[in-house]
C-alpha cells in the first residue's frame, strides 16, 4: 500500500516537473527577491520555495549569507563573492562568472532575522532530498522548526528513500511537527506528539508548549503530558549541567590561581601584579595570532600551540626581572610587597594600554575550539572543554616539576628552610628568581587560555586577581592540591548558587562562605608550613 502511494507520489512529481519547467520564469523569481520591503521579500522567498527546484537553493543560500547583490547598472540580481571590497559576480541561474566589480557598483540585498527564518525554512524544504545525509539532516531540522505542512509531501518522499537511521529519525520528527499543523485526526496527532516527546530537547518542548496553549480537549492533554515528560527529562539533566558548568568555572579559576599558588603560596609573596602576568600572556597570544594572520594564515589553527611556549617565556622572563628588580628587596615585608606589586600592576596595565591601545584586541578561536558537544540534554562548549584539559595538564606538569626535578627539590628546600638550604650549597637567590619566574610563566599560560573566553584588554588581569587569591587562601597556602580542590569547590558551589541566587548574590555568598571557612581553618583546606607561616 505504502509502496503504491510512493509510486503514485513519484509519478505525480514526475508529471509536475515538466509543467514547472514551462512556467518558471526563474529570472523573475530571483529578481523579486531584491524588491520591496521585508514582507515583499518574504513572499518572494516563498515563491521560490514553491518551485521546489533545487537549482534555486544556491540563490536562497547566498541571500541568507548576504551574498546576493543588485547590479546598479542594469538592476540584475546576482550572486557575489566578496574579496577585499572587490566583488566577483556570478549569474545565479547559469553559474557563469560574469565580472569583478567594486563594492560601490552593486547593492547588497538586505535581509533581517525574519527573512533568515523564512530562508532557512525554504532551504530546508528544498534540500530534504539532497544526496548528502548531513544536508538532509539539517534540512529536517529546519523543517522541524518551521513546522510547515506544505513540506509534508516532500517529507514523505524523503522518508521513503531514507536509508540513514539518524536522518530518518530527524525526518520523522519534522513530519510529526508538520502534521500537528494540519487538521489530521486525533490519533495521528497523538502519535506525532509521541515522536516529538521522544526527541526530548528544548525545541521539542517549545513546540509542545505552544501546542498546549493553542489546542483544547484531548489534544491539549496529550501535549501537556508530552511537555511535562520533556521537562522532567531536562530537570534530571540539570544537575549534570550545573556540575559541568561548575567544573568549567573551576578550571578557569584553577588556571588563574595556579601561578599565584607558586608566587604567593610557595614563596609567600603577595603578588598583586599576578593578574597582569595573565594579561601579558593573553597579549602574547594576540601578537602571535596577528603575526600569523599577516604572514602565514593557514597556520592559524595552531596559533595557540605557538603562543603557549612564547607566553611562558615572555611572562617568565618578566617575572624574573620583577623578582630581581623589586621583590628581592622586600622579602619579609608583606605590606610593602603588596604596595609595590600593586603599583607595578598599574604600571603594566598602562604600559599595555599605551602600546596596544585601550580597546579590546581580537583573539580568534581556532576552529577546533568553536562550537559545542551535545551529550543528552547537556551542552558542553568546546573551548571550555579544552580549557579544562589544559588546566589539568598545567597542574600535572607543575606537580612533576615540584616533585620530580632537582629544581623542584631545591625550591621546596628553600621554601621550608632558607638557611639550611643555603648551607647545603643551594643558591637561594637564584632559586627565588626561578620560582617567581615559574609562577609568572604559568600565569602567562593561563593568559593564553583565558584569551579564548574573555576580552583581551588591559583590564583582563583585574577580573581574576581577587578570585585567584580567594582560591589560594581557601585551598591552603603552599599546597597545589589545595589549589585544585579549592578552585573546583568554589566553581561548583558558585554554579549551584547562581541559578537560584543570581550571579551577584552568588558571588557574595561564596565570599561570605570563604570568610567563615577561614575563621574556622585559618590555613585553608590543606595547611602546610612555608616561609609565609614562619614570617
Amino acid at each position, binding site marked *: 500500500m505504502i509502496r503504491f502511494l510512493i509510486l503514485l507520489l513519484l509519478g505525480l512529481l514526475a508529471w509536475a516537473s515538466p509543467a514547472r519547467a514551462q512556467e518558471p520564469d526563474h529570472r523573475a523569481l530571483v529578481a523579486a527577491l531584491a524588491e520591496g520591503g521585508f514582507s515583499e521579500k518574504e513572499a518572494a522567498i516563498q515563491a521560490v520555495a514553491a518551485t521546489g527546484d533545487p537549482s534555486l537553493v544556491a540563490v536562497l543560500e547566498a541571500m541568507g549569507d548576504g551574498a546576493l547583490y543588485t547590479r546598479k547598472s542594469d538592476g540584475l540580481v546576482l550572486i557575489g563573492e566578496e574579496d577585499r571590497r572587490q566583488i566577483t559576480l556570478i549569474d545565479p541561474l547559469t553559474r557563469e562568472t560574469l565580472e569583478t566589480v567594486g563594492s560601490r557598483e552593486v547593492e547588497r540585498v538586505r535581509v533581517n532575522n525574519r527573512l533568515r527564518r523564512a530562508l532557512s525554512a525554504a532551504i530546508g524544504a528544498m534540500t530534504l532530498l539532497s544526496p548528502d545525509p548531513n544536508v538532509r539532516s539539517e534540512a529536517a531540522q529546519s523543517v522541524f522548526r518551521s513546522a510547515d505542512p506544505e513540506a509534508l509531501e516532500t517529507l514523505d518522499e524523503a522518508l521513503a528513500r531514507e536509508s540513514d537511521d539518524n536522518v530518518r529519525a530527524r525526518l520523522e520528527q519534522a513530519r510529526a511537527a508538520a502534521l500537528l499543523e494540519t487538521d489530521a485526526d486525533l490519533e495521528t496527532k497523538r502519535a506525532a506528539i509521541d515522536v516529538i516527546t521522544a526527541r526530548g530537547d528544548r525545541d521539542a*518542548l517549545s513546540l509542545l508548549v505552544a501546542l498546549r496553549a493553542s489546542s483544547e480537549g484531548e489534544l491539549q492533554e496529550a501535549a501537556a503530558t508530552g511537555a511535562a515528560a520533556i521537562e522532567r527529562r531536562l530537570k534530571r539533566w540539570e544537575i549534570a549541567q550545573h556540575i559541568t*558548568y561548575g567544573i568549567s568555572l573551576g578550571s578557569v579559576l584553577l588556571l588563574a590561581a595556579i601561578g599565584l599558588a607558586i608566587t604567593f603560596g610557595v614563596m609567600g609573596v603577595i603578588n598583586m601584579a599576578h593578574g597582569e602576568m595573565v594579561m601579558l600572556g593573553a597579549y602574547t597570544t594576540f601578537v602571535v595570532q596577528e603575526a600569523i594572520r599577516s604572514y602565514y594564515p593557514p597556520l592559524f589553527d595552531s596559533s595557540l600551540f605557538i603562543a603557549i611556549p612564547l607566553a611562558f617565556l615572555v611572562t617568565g622572563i618578566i617575572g624574573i626581572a620583577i623578582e630581581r628588580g623589586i621583590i628581592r628587596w622586600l622579602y619579609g615585608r608583606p605590606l610593602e610587597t603588596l604596595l609595590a606589586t600593586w603599583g607595578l600592576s598599574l604600571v603594566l596595565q*598602562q604600559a599595555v594600554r599605551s602600546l596596544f591601545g585601550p580597546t*579590546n584586541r581580537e583573539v580568534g578561536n581556532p576552529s577546533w575550539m568553536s562550537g559545542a558537544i551535545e551529550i543528552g540534554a547537556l551542552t558542553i562548549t568546546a*573551548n571550555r572543554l579544552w580549557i579544562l584539559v589544559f588546566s589539568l595538564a598545567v597542574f600535572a606538569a607543575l606537580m612533576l616539576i615540584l616533585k620530580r626535578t632537582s629544581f623542584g627539590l631545591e625550591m621546596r628546600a628553600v621554601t621550608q628552610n632558607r638557611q639550611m638550604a643555603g648551607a647545603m650549597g643551594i643558591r637561594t637567590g637564584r632559586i627565588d628568581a626561578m620560582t617567581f619566574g615559574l609562577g609568572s610563566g604559568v600565569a602567562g599560560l593561563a593568559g593564553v587560555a583565558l584569551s579564548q573566553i574573555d576580552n583581551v584588554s*588591559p583590564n583582563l588581569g583585574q577580573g581574576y586577581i581577587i578570585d585567584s587569591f580567594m582560591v589560594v587562601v581557601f585551598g591552603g597556602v603552599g599546597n597545589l592540591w589545595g589549589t585544585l580542590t579549592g578552585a573546583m569547590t568554589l566553581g561548583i558551589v558558585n554554579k549551584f548558587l547562581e541559578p537560584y541566587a543570581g*550571579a551577584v548574590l552568588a558571588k557574595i555568598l561564596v565570599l561570605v562562605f570563604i570568610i567563615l571557612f577561614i575563621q574556622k581553618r585559618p590555613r585553608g583546606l590543606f595547611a602546610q608550613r612555608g616561609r609565609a607561616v614562619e614570617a
Partner: protein
Amino acid sequence: MRHRSWGRHLSAALLGTSLLVGAGGAMAQETIKVGILHSLSGTMAISETTLKDVMLMLVEEQNKKGGLLGKQLEAVVVDPASDWPLFAERARELIEVSGVSAVFGCWTSVSRKSVLPVFEELNNILFYPVQYEGEESSRNVFYTGAAPNQQAIPAVDYLMEEEGVERWVLEGTDYVYPRTTNKILEAYLIQKGVDPSDIDINYTPFGHSDWQTRVAAIKDFGSQGKKTAVVSTINGDANVPFYRELGNQGIEAQDIPVVAFSVGEEELAGIDTSPLVGHLAAWNYFMSVDTDENAEFIDAWHAYIGDDARVSNDPMEAHYIGFNMWVEAVEKAGTTDPDAVIDAMVGVAVPNLTGGLSAMMPNHHITKPVLIGEIQDDGQFDVVWETSGLVVGDEWSDYLEGSKDLIADWREPMACGNYNTATGSCGGTVGQ
C-alpha cells in the same frame, strides 16, 4: 638602604600611573579653553579614550576654520582615571584652575552624577555624549546621547512588531543605567499587554565572564513556545564573553535575537562577529550610515588618528553634534560666558551625521533619529529599521510612577528641571 630603594620603586610606580595633565597651561592669553574630561586609564579607558581623540580632532578642525570669536580654541585634557570621585576633582580643576568655557566628558552615569554638583556650583557647562537612563535634567548639562525613549523603547517596538516577540529577557549589568532602563521597559511592556511571567529580569556583576548558566537559562526561558528576545543592557567588557557563549551554545539571532544598547562598533572591534550576525543594536548613529556628512567625518577621523581600521560610533557622533552646537551657541551669544551660552543653546540646530538636523530642546536633550542595526560579519551594523522622523529626548520617563508628570524646560519663565504638571510646581516628587 633597603628603605630607600623600596621608596624609589614605589615612586617609579606612582609616576607611571599618574598621568600628564593638560596640554601647555601657559600659552598665549587669547585662547578659548575647552575642557575634556574622559578617562584615559582604568576600566573606562576602553571607551573614553576615543572620545578624547574625537574632541581633539574637532577642536583642531575648528581652529583650522579660524577658531571661534576670532580666538583659537585650546583643549585642556585631564584624566579622571575611571575613578568617580576623581571626576569631580578634575572637573573643579578644569573650571577653577584652567578656566575652561565648557567641558565635554563623562561616560558612566555615576561619573556624571559625581560632577553634576561641581558644574552647578561653579556654573559651567557639561556636554554628556552617552545614552543614559534619563530621570535627570540640569541647567548646566546638555545631554547629547539618547534618553530611553530614543533608544530602548523603539528597539522593543521593533522586536514586537517586526519579529513578533512575546517573551522578554531583560539582561543587564548591575548598576544604575540597566536598572532604570529595565524598570522603564518593564512598565512599558506590561502596559503593552505582556504578561509579567513572560518577562525575566536578571543582573550580573561588572565584567562578568562566565555566562554558561545565564545563557542556558535564556535558552530555557526561550523554549516555552513563544518567540523570545533578549534586551541587553550588559555593559562594556562583559559583552564579549556573553556573545561568545551565545555563539558556542548555538543560539542564533533567528531563534533568540539579542538587542543591545551598549554594544557599538567599538565594542565589536574585539570579536569575530560571524556567529553574531543578525543580533541587533539600537543607536542614533551607525558607522555604516550612507550620507555625505558621515563619509566626511569618517575620512577626517581616519586622517586624524592615522589608522584606517578605526571605527566610529554613536557617542562620537554625540560629541560631534554637541561641539558644533556649542560653537554655534557661542557665536550666537557673542561670548563664552556660560549663562549667555546656556540661554543661546536652546533652539540651536546643527546637522547630525545621519542626514538630518538635530536641535537642542528646552529640556537640554536633543532630537535624534532612532536606528536599529543588525550586526554584520565585518563588525559593522546594517540598518534594518529607522524612525520616520527625529525623536525628542524625553528626560522624565512617561512610564515610571515618580516621573511621568515631570517635565523640564530651561527657558524663562519656567526655567525648571523637574516641573510637576500635576501640581503645577517646580521641584516635584523626584528631583535634584
